[in-house]
């Protein structure tokens, strides 16, 4: 049942973008860039939504600062399941260059289960689109 729901959702993904602190914001700008005329992901039905309760995909950037961590966990729990978590950028992958900082306690996937990792600093919009396409294919069971 869960798989059917998820497959149905891949027709038109509603994305909630979350910057969980400890981010230089570059990944966030590149994500917003996807909406602009050159990449224009809205023509694929991918839309940014304003509330986590409407989202199918939780797009996370940032290296998880101590202050932001509890709120990030709460937001993940509020996301209606089934849903997909995507980590964008080196910081979300494993804190990147801030690995040894005193305010970045742990990598994101120790707090929230992540389904897709998109590396880069920042990842190019083309890389993000490739990642989402691969995820959609995987959910649908295609190769």
């Amino acid at each position, binding site marked *: 049942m869960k798989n059917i729901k998820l497959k149905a959702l891949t027709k038109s993904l509603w994305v909630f973008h979350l910057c969980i602190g400890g981010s230089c914001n570059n990944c966030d700008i590149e994500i917003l860039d996807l909406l602009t005329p050159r990449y224009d992901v809205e023509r694929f039905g991918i839309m940014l939504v304003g509330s986590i309760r409407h989202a199918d995909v939780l797009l996370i950037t940032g290296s998880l*600062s*101590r*202050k932001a961590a509890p709120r990030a966990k709460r937001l993940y729990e509020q996301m209606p399941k089934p849903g997909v978590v995507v980590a964008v950028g080196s910081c979300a992958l494993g804190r990147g260059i801030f690995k040894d900082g*005193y*305010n970045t306690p742990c990598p994101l996937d120790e707090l929230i289960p992540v389904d897709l990792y998109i590396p880069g600093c920042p990842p190019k919009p083309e890389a993000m689109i490739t990642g989402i396409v691969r995820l959609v294919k995987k959910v649908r069971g295609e190769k």
Partner: protein
Amino acid sequence: MSILDDIKEKLQGKINDWYEHNPHRIYFSVDKKDIREIARVMFKDLGFRYAIASGTDTPKGFEILYHFSFDKTGHMVSVRVLIEDKQNPEIDSLAVISPAFEWIEREMWEMLGIKFIGHPNLKRLLLADDWPEGKYPLRCERES
């Protein structure tokens, strides 16, 4: 008279260790008890813009550098104070002179543990509310 001569004239007797690293970078030290008066003279009387303050943990004590910029000529004058008492470091707050000093004093308080006497709102700025008491990230642990 250049702005540097103005400083020397107005703050006569209070300036120690005047050092000109290059024509645009000047450093001098003052006693910590004079800092409020000196900041007031530089900020209000002489028209410097307050850039920022940087606190450092050194073996001799906590050193705060107040960086003032004179934009008409491009001079950066940094005023150095040393707080020797590392067990109970405190200094007069400059937030009474201008709201521009408020945030950096809160930051220095939570990063180094320096108490700013007279600050209107000394509470955490950057660190989480559940950050452990007594742990100051910018303090150095040095072997004695």
